[in-house]
């Protein structure tokens, strides 16, 4: 069933705002992970500005939904989403990556709203699993005596990041414990730091692997809000197993001239900065 057009427009606008703010941050910090920040931006917008249950005025609300971005180097659109949502002042953006900054180069729990201090890839899904298990303790029970989780946990992982063995440790444990309030989202942008994922470490077939691990598996266009929202809502409905949404994305989506380069970790020249802001008007 299609979602309201106004909602799609709102999310499109929010996604543009967070991409623009990310560009400002990377310029101010003189470095950043623009490619991976942009490929996940639409997913983050859908979660932060519609799907997740959270309250910027109350970042420690015990029953808030959790967003854990395991690929934590792609921090700029994460910071921009929490800033746009009102968790902290956008004044913090200009000190991103500087000495003494609240906004460090990889996300940290010191930032209001940020649940996870990342940087060491492959660990965030385990952290998300722990948070998801916690949601089921001291939870009300349904008519068949099963706990109704107090909150849901959304974890964005990378495809390069999926090389790490610990990802699969979390995958097997989440299935074993039927952690159905855990939703992993794979930002499948087909690149990792030093090249394409196929060149570097070919993990095809992706969808089959997840299906073999018996998670509730969906495959979508990660830049189509209709598809993102539908997949998130379906994941909420399916009980008894954790959920993976494999989102096909484009690295650096949003600035067409950047989209087919592997802009992983880069500085933005004045020209690139202008080009990006022009594309994101």
């Amino acid at each position, binding site marked *: 069933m299609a979602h309201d057009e106004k909602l799609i427009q709102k999310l499109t606008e929010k996604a543009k705002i967070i991409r623009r703010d990310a560009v400002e941050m990377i310029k101010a910090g003189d470095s950043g992970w623009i490619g991976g920040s942009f490929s996940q931006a639409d997913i983050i917008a859908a979660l932060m500005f519609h799907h997740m249950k959270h309250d910027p005025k109350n970042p420690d609300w015990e029953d808030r939904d959790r967003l854990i971005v395991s690929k934590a180097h792609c921090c700029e659109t994460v910071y921009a989403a929490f800033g746009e949502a009102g968790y902290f002042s956008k004044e913090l953006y200009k000190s991103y990556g500087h000495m003494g900054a609240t906004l460090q180069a990889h996300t940290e729990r010191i930032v209001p709203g940020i649940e*996870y201090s990342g940087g060491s890839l492959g660990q965030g899904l*385990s*952290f998300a699993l*722990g*948070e*998801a*298990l916690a949601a089921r*303790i001291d939870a009300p029970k349904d008519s068949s005596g099963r706990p109704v989780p107090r909150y849901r946990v959304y974890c964005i992982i990378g495809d390069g990041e999926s090389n790490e063995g*610990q990802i699969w*440790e979390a995958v097997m444990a989440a299935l074993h414990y039927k952690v159905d309030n855990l939703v992993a989202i794979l930002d499948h942008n087909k690149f990792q730091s030093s090249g394409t994922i196929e060149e570097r470490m070919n993990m095809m077939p992706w969808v089959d692997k997840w299906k073999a691990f018996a998670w509730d598996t969906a495959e979508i266009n990660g830049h189509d809000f209709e598809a993102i929202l539908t997949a998130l809502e379906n994941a909420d409905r399916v009980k008894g197993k954790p959920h993976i949404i494999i989102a096909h994305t484009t690295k650096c989506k949003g600035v067409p001239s950047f989209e087919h380069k592997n802009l992983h970790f880069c500085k933005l020249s004045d020209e690139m900065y202008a080009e990006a802001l022009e594309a994101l008007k």
Partner: protein
Amino acid sequence: MKQNYVLEPLGEMKAMYQAYNEEMIELSKKNGKIVLLYGDFPRGAAGELFQKEHPDRIYDVGIAEANLITTAAGLAGGGYLPFTHCHSIFAVGRAYNQIRQNVAFDKLNVKIVLCNSGMLWSFMGGSHQIIEEIAAMRVIPNLVLVSPSDPISTKKMTRAIAEYTGPVALRISAPPVPTVYRDDFPFELGKAVTLTDGSDATIISTGMVLSDALEAADTLAKEGIKVRLLDMHTLKPIDEAAIIKAAKETGAIVTVEDSSILGGLGGAVAEVTAENAPVPVKRVGIKDRFGQSGTVPELKEEYELTARHIVQAVRESVKKK
């Protein structure tokens, strides 16, 4: 000279893991936030109780130590008090980055139980006997590292770390060990316990080798060498004041640990004395070797960790004063 809370003769033999489990059962009566996590590791009595009475607060992640530590961190993020259980060698070895990055970095309230700690673990051999544990763990910021020596101190330490808010790693040795302390001995996290007093030399011990150090102190007393024996049950933050006082008042220190002499208790004590009160520090411990199969008495003999070796080290140290 020997404090009255030191048992004479020593009391019942008990494995530290059993003592830990007994205390966890007591703690769980009032604390509804405790979650027990295992990496395919024996439950113990506390685990068996939780399986029956608190099945939503006990999880085993299988042979996956990285996931074990990080899942615990997530549970702490969700407001609970997780205790992880697996072999020390695999927690420290395979999940070192997870301990450092997911627990210590954010000061999350996770208690990492380093089971089968140290060299003195019979039969299992060199792949399982950890020598690098103290050195590797004490260099991680924000991580409290504790090392009780007998069943009673294990219980008091378990309670203390549950009450402390922040990351803790707890060393628990494998074999049954004698009870050294009376139930009411003075215990404070971060403060060394004095077992015997004297001014000829100091022995600073950590972990299960305390009973060997005590035997050495008794032997030395008979030859007229009166040693101060300190149980350094908290390795980090270490009791610097007690070390400096011992250095100034006794002039020579011998450290004893079932761990490498590189960077462990011996290293930590030498760091304090070198900066504050330089005295000879003789380190008794594993001399940069891997372990092997054997019984605990055989291992003590092979790795020079008997009371006899400690006595010899003290005699030599006194000569260097």
